[in-house]
């Protein structure tokens, strides 16, 4: 089964971040029916970095994530995970198993499964068909689930059906699913949409704590939230990078001001 070998090849240790960067996007182009969603995009994310990406609607943020996770194939350009892994040659599950996790803009969890089962399904491990037929949770895995539930504050909802969670809880559950997946790189699309102020703070804390061990890329509209977590911000506009730097630098960039006020 090619699937099995693939999963094996990209497991632990295959990721090579010896040149500091964990993600390389170079000269990417994507167009839909003539509309250039991504236009000569160049972006580098360092290992252990927490990067925020902002930009007006249609700037290409979601499309960029689609390319990194294998959902969309670009018309041209390169996308590498570490030094060795060519993302453009891999399918979505292969990329996920290589160590890139994604949280969607609209929270998507497995609605008819319990909260714990959602974590079980997302958990890092052998994801082949025949293995899953006989798979049982061991102590370590059970402990990880409980630990994660505590982190995301859903311990009380252990057996609850995920579909019955509130919007904010689903956001948390999805973050939890990301955590048990143990990715090297987390792509987080609008994590605080629909959250209360308090929840937002907790999310900020969580994301900050993740940085260092993991690399985190956050796409967010909420400027205040971005300011609260980001060291480095990238501004996307019309499918390419408009500006990059600290939040203050970016906010004073005249082109950024023009784009945001002009829109």
């Amino acid at each position, binding site marked *: 089964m090619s699937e099995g070998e693939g*999963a094996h090849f990209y497991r632990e240790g295959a990721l090579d971040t010896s040149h500091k960067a964990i993600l390389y996007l170079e000269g990417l182009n994507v167009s839909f029916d003539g509309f250039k969603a991504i236009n000569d995009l160049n972006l580098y994310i360092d290992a252990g970095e927490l990067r925020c990406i902002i930009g007006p609607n249609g700037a290409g943020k979601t499309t960029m994530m689609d390319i990194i996770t294998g959902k969309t194939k670009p018309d041209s350009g390169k996308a590498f995970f570490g030094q060795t892994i060519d993302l453009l040659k891999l399918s979505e599950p292969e990329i996920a198993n290589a160590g890139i996790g994604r949280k969607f803009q609209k929270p998507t*969890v497995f609605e008819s*499964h319990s909260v714990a089962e959602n974590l079980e399904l997302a958990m890092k491990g052998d994801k*082949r068909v025949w293995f899953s037929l006989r798979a049982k949770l061991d102590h370590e895995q059970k402990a990880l689930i409980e630990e994660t539930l505590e982190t995301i504050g859903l311990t009380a909802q252990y057996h609850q059906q995920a579909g019955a969670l509130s919007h904010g809880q689903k956001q948390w559950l999805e973050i939890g699913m990301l955590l048990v997946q143990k990715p090297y790189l987390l792509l987080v699309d609008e994590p605080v949409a629909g959250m209360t102020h308090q929840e937002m703070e907790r999310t900020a804390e969580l994301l900050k704590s993740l940085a260092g061990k993991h690399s985190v890329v956050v796409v967010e509209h909420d400027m205040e939230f971005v300011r609260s977590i980001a060291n480095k911000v990238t501004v996307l506009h019309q499918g390419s990078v408009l500006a990059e730097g600290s939040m203050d630098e970016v906010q004073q960039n005249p082109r950024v001001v023009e784009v945001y006020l002009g829109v």
Partner: protein
Amino acid sequence: MFSQILKNDRGGQIMLVVLAAVLIVVPILNLAVAETSALHIPTYLVTLMGKYLTYALLAVAVDLVWGYLGILSLGHGAFFALGGYAMGMYLMRQIGDRGVYGNPELPDFMVFLNWKELPWFWQGFDQFWFALLMVLFVPGLLAFVFGWLAFRSRVTGVYLSIITQAMTYALMWAFLRNEMGFGGNNGLTDFKDILGFSLQADQTRVALFICSGLALALGYLLCRYVMNSKLGRITVAIRDAESRTRFVGYKVENYKVWIFTLSAILAGVAGALYVPQVGIINPSEFSPLNSIEIVIWVAVGGRATLYGAVLGAILVNYAKTVFTGLMPESWLFMLGALFVLVTLYLPQGLAGLWQPLKTKLGHKPEVAA
């Protein structure tokens, strides 16, 4: 082991107990009770019930892919028919020289078509074990190849439904051709015996009935076992959020292919048990109408419950037998209305009616355990 598999499956427990009782009582009432007694069950009824049981297994197979995997297959009749043809070919070979033309090697229709020798794909079907293998292999292979092609290119939803329908439609036309070597329009019939036992004998009929029941029970337990495993949870995850499943690292197409293939094999087994009981297999089994009817059995019973599929298949087919007998005109009206009403007002099927009842009776729902 059974208790482990059937944990939290009250419907399945009840269904299997009833099935076991029927499998014990019916043969006794047929074989051991005198024909003059009021309690006697005539053989034709035993065979009819056996037929329903094969339909129930077929419905379980469809529920597996529709209810749990979210694939509405409008082509499962094809797998059923292929299993049936594989069994039919064995039964044809069993006729030997007792056919109208008395040819020991060739079935009658081949003699009629002036064929001189047995085509290569008929070789081996004189052996029961080989035929059984083919009952599993042929539908399984078709499902595997078809599924591999379709799921890999991510054909989903209605598109998939339509091409499964096209598949069975194409097969129907293919089997209608005399050149195919499966008896054309007339199909395979005039069977004499199976494993040396006459198909007309009451004992054989009862044995086939019991086999159908056992196949249903085993098929049910197998499906339940798979659905209780992590594999089952992934299957449901694919149904609910396919692309999310991909992003957590599951190769969705592989899961789909294996579940689809398993389902096709079960359908093939059902077909193989169906043919000796009804005594004929012809291309009409491939007709798209047949395949879509199976779906309504599942819908009536309630999908993603497995026992609902069994219930639905038996109820709808019982109704069909009764009404086509009493007022043949009305049956299609009723079947049509069933399609409309169930989708509109009973999306969970009869099993859905049972759920609130279950909670009312104090049965703890799974999630609160």
